[in-house]
């Protein structure tokens, strides 16, 4: 009994199609985000995050339709990230049925955007995404998939975003992203212990024990993973079983 830690599958969506491939048994079309979101919902995912990696303007309009279609069929929290730059972008996604938006580079460009967004729409729907990489004895924020350094200290930035009204922090280790050796536990713990709001750990999950380690050692409130669920290596239910075996409260 008590508040459950959350498992959040993440879908990368390009022009209305899930990319990186999602392999489910008995699914007609693994590229359809609505079908994939429903499947995760049925498997017991606690939330769903969709990252819009569309480059074109037309593709973005498609994303709004995708969010709307998912929101009509999936009744768990839905976060949409990627390309959220203005209050209008946020309003558009919330009106389509998203529950939260994730803000990344727009916050770095203008931190006050987070404050304005939080005041306008409520902190509960503002997630600040942080992509961090180890530099010497600390972590710094990187943009453009880890290529561009900003020189900003990741832990200090997380605290600032907490002060500015972020409702949640989505923390990705760029060192671990795609490496499958587990979360950067030190980074996760440094941020989770420094901020008042919940932290979602991301980047590096290769097996289910990694998820439990993110909570127990990294102090994360939620864990996000993409590939281990997409490729059918593990189901959400199997992940929850391993979390429970580690004594972690889960919604099952």
């Amino acid at each position: 009994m008590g508040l459950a830690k959350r498992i959040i599958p993440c879908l990368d969506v390009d022009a209305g199609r899930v990319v990186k491939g999602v392999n489910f048994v008995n699914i007609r079309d693994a590229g359809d985000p609505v079908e994939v979101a429903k499947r995760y919902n049925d498997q017991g995912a606690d939330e769903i995050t969709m990252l819009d990696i569309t480059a074109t303007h037309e593709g973005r309009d498609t994303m709004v339709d995708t969010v709307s279609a998912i929101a009509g069929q999936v009744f768990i929290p839905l976060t949409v990230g990627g390309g959220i730059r203005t209050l209008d972008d946020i309003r558009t996604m919330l009106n389509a049925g998203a529950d939260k938006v994730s803000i990344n580079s727009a916050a770095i460009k203008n931190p006050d955007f987070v404050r304005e967004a939080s005041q306008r729409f409520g902190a509960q729907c503002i997630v600040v995404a942080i992509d961090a990489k180890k530099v010497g004895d600390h972590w710094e924020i990187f943009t453009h998939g880890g290529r561009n350094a900003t020189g900003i200290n990741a832990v200090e930035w997380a605290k600032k975003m907490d002060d500015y009204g972020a409702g949640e922090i989505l923390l990705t280790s760029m060192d671990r992203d795609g490496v499958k050796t587990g979360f950067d536990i030190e980074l996760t713990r440094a941020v989770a212990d420094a901020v008042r709001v919940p932290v979602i750990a991301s980047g590096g999950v290769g097996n289910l024990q990694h998820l439990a380690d993110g909570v127990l050692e990294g102090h994360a409130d939620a864990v996000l993973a993409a590939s281990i669920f997409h490729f059918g290596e593990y189901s959400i239910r199997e992940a929850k079983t391993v979390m429970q075996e580690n004594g972690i409260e889960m919604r099952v």
Partner: protein
Amino acid sequence: MSATLLTVIDYGMGNLHSVAKALEHVAPDNVHIEVTDNPERIREADRILLPGVGAIRDCMAEIRRQGVDRLVDEAIRDGKPLLGVCVGMQALLAHSLENNGIDCMNYFDGEVRRFRDGAVDAHGLPMKVPHMGWNNVELKVDHPLLAGINSGDRFYFVHSYYADAHPEYTAATCDYDATFAAMIYRDNIFATQCHPEKSFPAGLTLLNNFVRWNGQP
């Protein structure tokens, strides 16, 4: 069956599309769901959903400025079923300590207060504020809106302030550092701190019960 109208009152505070979509999903064909700020449509409604997110000061200011308090009062006096959600529930209490103290609509004699910062759980892990995620509710009463829901079912919460669980009106409690009111009820009013529209499957059951409720406890 004759057509009936359910209005979700849009007083400018936050995202009402999730709740409208969930209501559309569960409502019978003769129930029309409308998100509106139009006082006439709210007066014509057969049942009302009062949402709310963000700071209570802003919510109460808009509720008073737009006359939503009078519309809610009319609906309650007319015996129409009313469901408050999240800050829409907190607004029905007497007072909130948020924003240095804000008087609310006073349908329930109680106070809304903030969770402590710095609390830890049984693992020694930090209990973050806001209380965000899926938590169990313990049912305290039999109520038509709770038909098909079991004590211990999980609902999705996201809030930093909570209402004390006064026994005379608490329908369900939840524990997060403190034991607080997850759901409250009185006559034709029901209100939830959690978000039924995001709490598949139990929350959808609650909304399904609401769209069919006659307002009798």
